[in-house]
Structure formats: C-alpha cells, structure tokens
C-alpha cells in the first residue's frame, strides 16, 4: 500500500505577499506615487539627520557653564542648569518639596478614579474635587500651620502653567454649564444675556482679555486696594474659557432627543431636576471629548500670561535665554518648552480619542 504524501507548500509569490510586495503596493504603485515617495524621502533626509545630530549625537550633555558646550550640537547643559527655574519659577528652593507634594497628592488622589471596580466612585470623586483644591492652595501658598508664606508673584515655571490650567478649567466648567443652560432657556432676557456674554468672549482674543484684566480691573476697584496679579489673570481666563465650554455643552444638549425633555417634564420634574437628573448627565457624557479639546486649548493658552508678566514655563524660558551668561541658547530653551507642552497636549488628545472610543458604545444597538 502506498501512502500519499503532500509536497511541501510553495512559498507565496513575492509579488503579492511579503515586504517587497508591500513596498510596491504602498510606495511605488504608479509613477505619481513613486514621485511622491521620492520627494518625501528627500524631505526626511533633509530634516531628520541634521535634527538628530543636533539634538542627540552632537549635543553637549555634561557640564555646568556655557564654556562646557564645545560640540556643534545643542547645549542641553543650559536646560540642566535651569531646570529648577523652568519647573518652579522663583519658588524658594528649600520649599519646593511642597510643590512636589501637591503634584503627588493629585496623582495619588485621582488614581482610584481610573480603577474600573472602584466602589462609590462618584462620592469619592466629588469629595476629591472639593477637598483637593483647598489642600493644594494651602500647600502652595502657605501661611498657615507654621508654613512659610510664598506670595503668588514667586510662583512660576511649569507649576504656574498647571495652576492656571487647572483652576481655569475648574472655574470655567460650572460657569460654562450655567451659560449653556441659559442659552437654551425659555426666558428671553436670560437667553439674550447669555448669548451676548458667550459671543462677546468668543469674539475677542485672550490677549485683550488679559490686557483688560491687568489694566482695566484696577480702575474699577477702590483706591489703594490691590488685586493679586495671578488672580486677575485667572478671572480673565475663566471668563474667556467658560464661553467655549458653554458652546461645547450646548452642542451636547442639542444632540439629546426632544423626547427626553418631554419625558422628563411628563414625570413631573421641575426645571433643575429635569436638567440635573436627565439632560445634563447624558449631554455631558456626549461632549467629554469636546471638553478635553477645550482643556487642551486652555493649556496652550496659558502661555499667553507672558504678556502680563507672569512667569509661566514659556516666560521662564524666555527670561533664561536672555541671561547674558547663556546668550544664544534660545533654540534649546524653546525646543525644551515645546517638548513639555507637546507631551501634555499630545497625551490629553490621545486620552480624548480613547474616551471617545470607550463612550461611543453606549448608543450602539
């Protein structure tokens, strides 16, 4: 009896499968594509090798002064020497642990919110949102429990950027939701006021708002009363950003079917319970990605406080680059600042995409 043995399989044709075929299909499918590929490769060759050699291979990594930067590439020594200023501004050296502690508290405190199985998440989250800002304020500002007071004029660097961004969004969110409710209200007077408010802030650049809060607000106050510079900037940022939040939230409210409003009314709920229990929970869930985008915009906008003389990350870099001991270090400084901003913004935008995918399933049948 003969047993039949199959011949071994032939390898797949290299024109259809494998890396060569992939390259053919994706890079050289026709002459236009080939031309584009060559052009793109030329661009990459033009940009990437000089960039790499400047940032890494030819860069100066060790040293303490400008004289240690002997190689042609970037002088990262500058960043290493000034990192304290970039992170904390003029916050006193021996008190910087308080800033670190504040950041760690935020990370540790917020971490349970990202655990799926966490019981009583809402209660925990709300109490965290109420307690943390108070603790953070006293930690950063001091002046109680024997902690030395650090005036806000000494705050700076990345820390100030984060303070403005978080306080800004924390203030703008509730105000924005109220404005959105007002814009959708049945009462004409309230609607007109909210529409005017929103359109006004959306129509002017943030810079003029900051200018206004720094030169006009003092005029309205009684003689001799001095307003904290940071607080003035924060008021401006909150007003400005609340208008954008309001528009995002309004978009979410418009997307809720009319039946939901009618059903809530039919249940005999009053206006606030109708909104608070039925409409807003659905609307806010819909617009979370949009809100994250607003946060990203706000984070980028914090750099504008440079105009009114607050020392955020960008201004610290600008100031350090103007130091006569470190002349010509502007490129390194700005690249570093850009990298920090980029990491935050890119991280948030990825998170927003992740949320969008996660929340998208809710309405699928």
């Amino acid at each position: 009896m003969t047993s039949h043995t199959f011949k071994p399989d032939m390898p797949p044709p290299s024109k259809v499968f494998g890396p060569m075929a992939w390259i053919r299909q994706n890079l050289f499918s026709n002459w236009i594509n080939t031309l584009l590929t060559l052009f793109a490769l030329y661009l990459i060759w033009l940009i990437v090798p000089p960039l790499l050699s400047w940032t890494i291979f030819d860069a100066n990594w060790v040293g303490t002064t400008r004289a240690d930067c002997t190689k042609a590439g970037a002088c990262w020594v500058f960043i290493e020497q000034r990192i304290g200023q970039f992170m904390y501004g003029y916050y006193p050296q021996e008190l910087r642990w308080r800033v670190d502690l504040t950041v760690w508290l935020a990370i540790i405190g917020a971490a349970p919110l990202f655990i799926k199985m966490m019981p009583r998440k809402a209660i925990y989250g709300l109490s965290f949102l109420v307690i943390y800002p108070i603790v953070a304020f006293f930690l950063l500002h001091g002046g109680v429990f024997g902690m030395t007071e650090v005036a806000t004029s000494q705050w700076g660097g990345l820390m100030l950027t984060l303070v403005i961004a978080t306080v800004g969004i924390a203030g703008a969110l509730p105000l924005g939701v109220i404005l959105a409710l007002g814009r959708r209200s049945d009462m004409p007077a309230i609607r007109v006021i909210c529409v005017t408010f929103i359109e006004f802030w959306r129509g002017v650049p943030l810079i003029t708002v900051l200018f206004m809060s720094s030169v006009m607000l003092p005029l309205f106050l009684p003689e001799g009363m001095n307003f904290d510079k940071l607080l003035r900037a924060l008021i401006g940022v909150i007003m400005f950003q609340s208008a954008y939040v309001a528009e995002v939230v309004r978009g979410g409210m418009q997307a809720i079917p009319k039946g939901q409003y009618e059903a809530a009314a039919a249940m005999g709920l009053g206006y606030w319970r109708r909104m608070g229990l039925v409409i807003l929970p659905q609307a806010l869930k819909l617009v979370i990605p949009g809100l994250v985008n607003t946060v990203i915009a706000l984070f980028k906008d914090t750099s504008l406080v440079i105009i009114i003389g607050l020392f955020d990350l960008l201004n610290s870099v600008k100031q350090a680059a103007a130091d006569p001991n470190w002349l010509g270090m502007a490129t390194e400084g700005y690249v570093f600042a850009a990298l920090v901003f980029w990491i935050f913004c890119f991280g948030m935008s990825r998170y927003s995409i992740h949320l969008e995918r996660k929340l998208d399933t809710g309405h699928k049948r």
Partner: protein
Amino acid sequence: MGWYLFDNTQTNLQHRGITSGFGFLENSAGFGIAQHLIPFKESDSYARVFLIGLLNTLLVTFIGVILATLLGFIVGVARLSNNWIVNKLATVYVEVFRNIPPLLQILFWYFAVFLTLPGPRAAHGFLGSFFVSSRGLNMPAAITNDATWPFVISIVLAIVAIVIMTKWANKRFEATGEPFHKFWAGLALFIVIPALCALIFGAPVHWELPELKGFNFVGGWVLIPELLALTLALTVYTAAFIAEIVRSGIKSVSHGQTEAARSLGLRPGPTLRKVIIPQAMRVIIPPLTSQYLNLAKNSSLAAGIGYPEMVSLFAGTVLNQTGQAIEVIAITMSVYLAISISISLLMNWYNKRIALIER
C-alpha cells in the same frame, strides 16, 4: 453696585490725571513704527496709529488665511494618501504642530530662527534679488509707471470676459449637452488680454532691486522679521488644524458616492470635482470658518515679539503713553468683534448657499 464701580473709576481716573473720552485720538503720537502700509510720521495722531495697527493685523490675517488654507489642504489630502510614507509624514506634521502653543511657535521662529540669521552683509541670496537676513526678507519692489493703470484695467477686463464666457458655456452645456473647455479658454483669456496690453503700453511696472549699501539693504521692499515669524508660525499652526478638517470632510463622503459616480461613467477627475468635493465642502466650511477666526485672533499674539499690529501697537504702546485704558481696550475689543462678526457673516452666507437642500 454699578454706581460703586463707576464712582471708583471716576476717583481713580481723577487721581491719575486722566480725562476720559476719545479726544486723545487726535493728539500727536510722537513715536516711530517699524512697518506701516500707509505713510506715517512721528507727529501723526493716535487715530492714524490705530489705523496702521488695524491694517497690519488685517495684512497678517489675510496672508495667513491664504497660506494656511493652501498648506492645510495639501497636508489634509496627504493624510488620506495611499502612499504610506506621505501619509505618515503628514500625520507627524499635524500631531507635532497642533500640540505646541502658537505663542511658543512665534517666539521660536523669531528668537531662534530669524534673529539668529546672519546680518545683511552675509545675507542668504536667492536668484540675486531676494535676500534673507536678520533684518528680514528683502525683495524687489514693483514701481508703478504710466502703463500700470491700463494693465490693471486689462486684468479686470479679462476677469469680466471669463465670467461672460463661463455663463455662456454653462448655458450651452445645459441646452445642448456639448461640453466646453472652460478652464483652458479662461486661462487663455487671462494670459492673452493682459499680455496684449503689456505689448501696446510697455511693461506695467519696473522692478527695483535691493542693493547692499553700507550695513543694510537699500531699495526694494522689505518684510520685517516680526512679520515673517508671525505669518510663518500662524500658517504652520493653523494649517495643522485645517488639514484635520479637510481630512474628516473628505472622509465623511461615503464611498458609495464614488462608486455611483464611477458607475455613471464619470472619470476620476470629474468624480472628485463634481461629486466628492461639493459634498465634502459642506462638512469643511463651518469648522474652517472658526479656524480663520482663530487665526485672526491669534494674530494678536504678535504682542509677544513686537510686530506693530492692533494689540502690541494700540493696546500696548498707545495705552502706555496715554493711560486711556478703558477707551483703548474698548476700541481694540470692538475691532476684533467686528472682524469676527464679519468673517462669520460672510461664511454663513456661503454656507447657506452650498447647504444641502432637502426635499
């Protein structure tokens, strides 16, 4: 409450010796401005300073909108490309530039690029007539002469002729179905009429080349580094957003539309022009408008590098000199509100015209 604020303001203004009202606009300014599109001297009034600031803002916005739209559309289409490497390059561009604050980009271009360029004596030259140095971009200036006006009129005539030709061709196409090469005929009209005019009246302008004399260039036009840094940064930043808008717009047109058009016998070119793009435009226009508005508002970031536009010139220098905080801020804000409202009105009108008409 209102009276309390008003009273405070009154006392504060009195103590600082400032008289309220817009009378200050007629006073003489007494400072020079780096870039002015209309003639300006130090003794001119604050009102004229305001006008120069406004024109400079509009200039940046205008150039920025055009360049950002071009770059944004190219990158947006590149993100949809089947070519893997082009696709990834466009993605990297978008992800890098839209996540860096615009002010940081402006400062980078200004302090780290343009100001570190060599001085005029070692300027990089292109074609022997364009020079890039730390003083900006020097380029040939077009000087008008007697033949300029006929040339401008001939261009207007050419445009009128093209409009008439297009209307006629469309009418004939609808009546008989015979196509007409509108594009080529229009191009021919646009070249031939002005060329004839130039032949008859002579060259419409003569070019004045920049020349290195002493430590700087003399003659020609100069684009100051502040303007270059600002336009470049705003263009690059806004183009990243426009690219995303264009990509999502084109992706929103379902593939069935392409297949239907192809099965009707349309070739790839007309499919794109007559089926895909008109539908994609409906999705693209509204967010594109808000990007234009953002660009106009972001032009105020020039205050960071001292390009003389509305905010840095008027709300900065003029406010510091006169102390008329309320009036100056009010004027500045109303200008931006006016720009915002007019751009959105214009775009709303266009949007309505191309919107889907549902039956």
